[in-house]
Every structure is written in structure tokens, then in C-alpha cells.
């Protein structure tokens, strides 16, 4: 075990980790940040997406020690400073972009990464970017609406089905 230090949601943190400790387990078990979910554990589903130095990555397929020293952001870092929901989170709530909520942390992190790269994505661009995030409840439609809304575009203009 070695001490692995990084910045998570703006705070310098450290926890013990083995070489094989995955970033997602470091966050969940080492730091108690259980908002990041393990879905498939095979980098298919995207429930574990977090940002490492501003880039969306699947934290089930990264060793914690390999990103020591990095700036990591998780779903716990997406709310506003006063605790109210951030823009993407609020849009998911407003547009019913979740049902069971299991995929939501990853969906929100991937959506935020998309908007950082492309502030006004088209519907097609949103669907394409979220290719690596699987949702088994919503049928994606309301997630896409939420991302459109979060980008300041009119989600009502999107087809109902």
C-alpha cells in the first residue's frame, strides 16, 4: 500500500491504495465519495465517469496511482457552492432525465464534459457523445433534452418521441 494523493473536487486528498486499486474504488472506498457508481466494471456502461484533468474518463478502467497528482472532479463536485444543484444536475431534474438514477452520475459527468468542449451541441452531437453511457430506464430522450436545456437551448423544440 502506498499513499496516493490527488485533488478531488478542489480539495487535496490522500488515501492508501495498492497498485491495482481502481480510481473508482479509491474514490468510493478510500474517500467515501460513493456518488460515482460501478455499473459494468468493463468500461461499457459509463456509470463511473469522472473528470481527470478536465477530461471524462471511466474510473473503473484507470488505476488510482496512475492519476496521482491529477485534478479529479466527481458528481459530488457538481453542485453550486451553496449546495443547490448545478446547471446540468438541475436540467436533469427539470426534464426528468433520470428514473432509477444509477447511471445519472456518469451521465451528468459526460454531459458536463461535452458542454465544456462544445457549449451548444446539436441533438445528434449529444446522442453521439453519450454513446459510452448506458441508461436502462429513460430511453435517453429526456437525458438529451436535459443536456440541450443545460446548454441554454430550447429543449421543447425537440420531437416528443
Amino acid at each position, binding site marked *: 500500500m502506498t499513499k496516493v494523493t490527488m485533488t478531488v473536487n478542489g480539495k487535496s486528498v490522500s488515501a492508501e491504495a495498492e497498485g491495482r486499486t*481502481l480510481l473508482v474504488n479509491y474514490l468510493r472506498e478510500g474517500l467515501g465519495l460513493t456518488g460515482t457508481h460501478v455499473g459494468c466494471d468493463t468500461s461499457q456502461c459509463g456509470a463511473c465517469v469522472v473528470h481527470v484533468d478536465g477530461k471524462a474518463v471511466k474510473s473503473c478502467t484507470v*488505476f488510482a496511482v496512475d492519476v496521482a497528482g491529477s485534478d479529479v472532479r466527481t458528481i459530488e463536485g457538481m453542485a453550486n457552492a451553496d449546495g443547490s444543484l448545478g446547471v446540468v444536475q438541475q436540467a436533469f431534474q427539470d426534464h426528468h432525465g433520470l428514473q432509477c438514477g444509477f447511471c445519472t452520475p456518469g451521465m451528468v459527468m459526460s454531459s458536463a464534459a461535452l458542454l465544456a468542449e462544445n457549449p451548444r451541441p446539436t441533438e445528434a452531437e449529444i446522442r453521439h457523445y453519450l454513446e459510452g453511457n448506458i441508461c436502462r430506464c429513460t430511453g435517453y430522450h429526456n437525458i438529451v433534452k436535459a443536456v440541450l436545456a443545460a446548454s441554454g437551448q430550447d429543449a421543447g423544440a425537440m420531437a416528443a418521441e
Partner: protein
Amino acid sequence: MHNFEFVKPSSIADAVKALAAEGAQPLSGGQTLLPTMKQRLAAPEVLVSLTGIAEMQGVCMGEGGLHVGAATPHAVVAREAAPSYPALAALAGGIGDPAVRNRGTIGGSVANNDPAACYPAAVLASGATVVTDRRRIAADDYFQGMFTTALEEGEFITQVIFPVPQAAAYVKFNQPASRFALTAVFVARFADGVRVAVTGASNNGVFRWEEAEAALSADFSTAAISGLSVSDADMISDLHGSAAYRANLVKVLTGRAVNAAH
């Protein structure tokens, strides 16, 4: 997965030293190696991360064509190769999904030589040079069958140099669950001839379709290959597609790539 000792050198020279250890293996983006280790199909004693080596990062034009550092993630190639080699950039931008593209690297993909990976098709069709910590290997000598390459024990790729074709395109028929190629074809037209590389189809991994190369070198049009046929003898057959289906895809996708090449 089994535990291991983790080393993260910051130079090629230090990586060479670290990889001399017994049971050492290079780790790049890890998008294939981590799942493989989780299944205990690989259990290295020492993992040497190559992603902290600055001299293995980035894309730039140089002697012999476009130089791509082996530890450059797909997302960076998709963005930075776009002005000089758009077909290569488009290929990189279609691998996996955005999160995978932020971690996975060209060196990792080419070293692994998955029979359905995208990059081997670009390397072979471009006649690229694979540069390692100890030598330069021509693409035609590098790929030696499914998951098999010319790399020796402890040898790792530092850079891939792509001659830039006059026109090229990569057309991939997606296997939608894995996002690997069910079959994909890279066509590259150079002044001295056309090269056609096929991935996802053969039990022997990426290969050149030489009959199509000869026909397209004489006449770069879909008509030139309309009379050709591809044998299904060595093609992969699985629940996603039969050998005959893949053989047919090779021809169809080659035609589409010729039409798309610019």
C-alpha cells in the same frame, strides 16, 4: 486482479530500465490491459506506466510524415491530426466512446494488435513506421497475426510515423456493443500506388487486400474492384457475423472507402 508493483517513469530511458525487471509489462492508457487483468488473463509483476513520458506525447509533422507519440490519446489524435491527415483523425475519433478516447493511446492499440482494432488498419494502409525504444519497424513487418507483433519482450513503441497519402478514408462497420470494428477498411492512395488494409475480418488479424490494391492502383474507382471477390477461408465467424458476411463486408467497405477518400 492480481496486485503488482507500479512504476511511472518520466523518460524513455527510465522506462527501458524499469522494463528490464523480471515480469515487467508496459501500461499505456489501459483500456484493454485493465479489463484483461481483471479477468486474470494478464498478471504482470511490474507495470510500467508510459503515460507520464512527455517525449511520447503529441502529434506533429516531421521527417517521413506525421509523427504521433505512442502515448498520445485517441482524442488528441482526432483533434490534432485533422489538418494534416484527416482520415487518420477521423479513425481516432471513432474508436470506442469519448471517455475511452481520453485514455486509450495509439501505442497501446498498435502493441496489442487486437484483430478488430482500428489503428492497425491505418498503420498498415499508410505504410507507417513503428518506432520503438530500440529500432524502427516497417508496418509490413510489424503485424504478425492476431495479438502478435514484431515487438520483443520488454520492447515498447515510442512513436508511429505516418507517410501522408494523397487521399485516404477509413470506413468502419461498427459492432455496436463493443464499438470495435465488425469489419473495417482503410484505403490510402499514394503517388506510387494504393494500399488497402482490412481489420476486424480475419483470424490472422489486420491484412492487406493486395488484389484490390493492384486494381485500385490502375483505376481508383469502385468499378475497378467490382469483379473481385474475397475468400472467406480465414475470416472470423461469430454470433455477430459469419465468415461469408465479413468477406462480403470487406469488398463493400472498400468500395465505400474509395468513394469517401479525399
